[in-house]
């Protein structure tokens, strides 16, 4: 579909408990992403979300991706559990460049002090917040989890300006909410991953609202078909080449260089 090098900033390995997931091993995922010319991917472990001891996912993920240089592991942290700082330190020791949090699945909000504590401790790493995992309208009736509200996020970004914060699985509405709250001055350390942006030409519309320098290419594969993000960006939108380069890899590379 494209010759532009693409970094997928939101891919997954492992299993989601409510659906059998294909292409969820390192080799299979890389092969599936390569079909749409995605060369590299940041990967989280789906299993981590519903583990009680979330920290156990990190050495597991490190073991899975060992020997796969095109996959960059992103750890998982539940900052409400005792000794989460040890989990964060273990992620650093494992060479992870960032960690993901799932506040809705772990019972906290972005306005809680614990988020600031995590950001303060995450020196040298990025922190990724997954706002959804799957469509709330179809959750298992015994495991219904509302999306993460973005209230309090801008204050947290401002208080920790050297920590890159990535919103993964973010839909148009909360992104627009943040842009309005910021009144044109979104924090420089805030990034938006595009797999959940919708509407006709929606990625281009959101890039206009948020700033193209904040948009990260992501697929949410293999839960989503990776073709979705590729077609949205390369076919349905009409980005200039410089903007395509920013979205598909340069923004991610800049984030990691901080």
């Amino acid at each position, binding site marked *: 579909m494209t010759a532009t090098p693409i970094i997928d900033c939101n891919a997954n390995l492992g299993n989601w408990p409510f*659906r059998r997931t294909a292409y969820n091993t390192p080799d299979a995922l890389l092969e599936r992403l390569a079909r749409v010319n995605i060369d590299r991917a940041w990967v989280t472990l789906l299993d981590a979300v519903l583990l009680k001891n979330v920290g156990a996912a990190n050495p597991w993920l490190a073991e899975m991706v060992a020997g796969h240089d095109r996959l960059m592991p992103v750890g998982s942290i539940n900052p409400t559990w005792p000794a989460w700082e040890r989990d964060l330190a273990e992620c650093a020791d494992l060479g992870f460049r960032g960690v993901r949090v799932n506040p809705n699945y772990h019972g906290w909000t972005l306005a809680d002090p614990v988020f600031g504590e995590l950001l303060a401790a995450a020196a040298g790493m990025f922190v990724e917040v997954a706002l959804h995992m799957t469509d709330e*309208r179809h959750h298992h009736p015994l495991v*219904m989890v509302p999306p993460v509200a973005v209230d309090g996020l801008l204050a947290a970004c401002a208080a920790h300006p050297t920590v890159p914060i990535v919103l993964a699985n973010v839909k148009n509405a909360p992104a627009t909410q943040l842009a309005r709250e910021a009144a044109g001055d979104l924090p420089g350390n805030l990034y938006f991953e595009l797999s959940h942006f919708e*509407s006709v030409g929606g990625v281009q519309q959101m890039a206009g609202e948020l700033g193209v320098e904040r948009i990260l290419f992501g697929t949410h594969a*293999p839960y*989503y078909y990776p*073709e979705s993000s590729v077609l949205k960006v390369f076919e*349905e939108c009409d980005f200039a080449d410089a903007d395509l380069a920013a979205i598909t890899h340069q923004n991610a590379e800049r984030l990691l260089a901080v």
Partner: protein
Amino acid sequence: MSASGIIDCHVHLHHNWGDRFACAELLLRGADRMGVELMCLSMGVRREIYTRPTTVEEMHQHNDEVAQVIARWPDRFAGMCYLTPRFLPQSLAEIERRVAHGPFRGIKLLWDMYCDRPNLDPIAARAGELGAPIQQHTWIKAIAEHRCESEPWRLAALARRNPDTTFLAAHTGGNWELGIRQVIDAPNILADICGGDPEMGYVEMAARMLGTERVVYGSDAPGRSFASQLAKVHGADVPDADQQQILSATMRRVLDL
């Protein structure tokens, strides 16, 4: 249109994108970029449809807006006539006015009434006589959202009572793993894959359990992206010929093109 052109069985006008013509132009720009040649269009830019039941006058206004768009771009849009089955005589009259005498090609039902109720039978029967497909919104929601939102099993009940009518289960119930199963035994129901997240496995399961000839591409644009919905087909592990069937051939047959 070309013999293999993509047919999108499910688009709307919507107030978030301006008036009827502005919204139609947005749809056309997106469709052109994505290779979609024909779009089945229903409902105007009125907001009340998402908050309360529609009056007869509002039903007429929705269809007037769609008719104006079809008149401007007759080769790009096929009209789906929106009905309010709570007002059965007026709905039947609307079928005669818009479908029997053209230019609308099918019928659109949303959440005016649960679709397994008796009021739907005269509508379904007349649609069958005219060869007009009925597209019924279906969703199985863990969290109630709209009044009288029909699950696919309700459509299956209606379809079994009206075997000569073709139905499109819009969104395949949203919760597609369950929705596909709910329509298996109603062969005159097609799974319209529009409007949910592009979750891997959707089209593969629909094709496996219903047969490829019962799966059709739709987007729910402009609220949804054409691209994210086309990805369900282009990304599916099904043969190219099956993709072509889903993207074009089946709707070509349904619309008698």
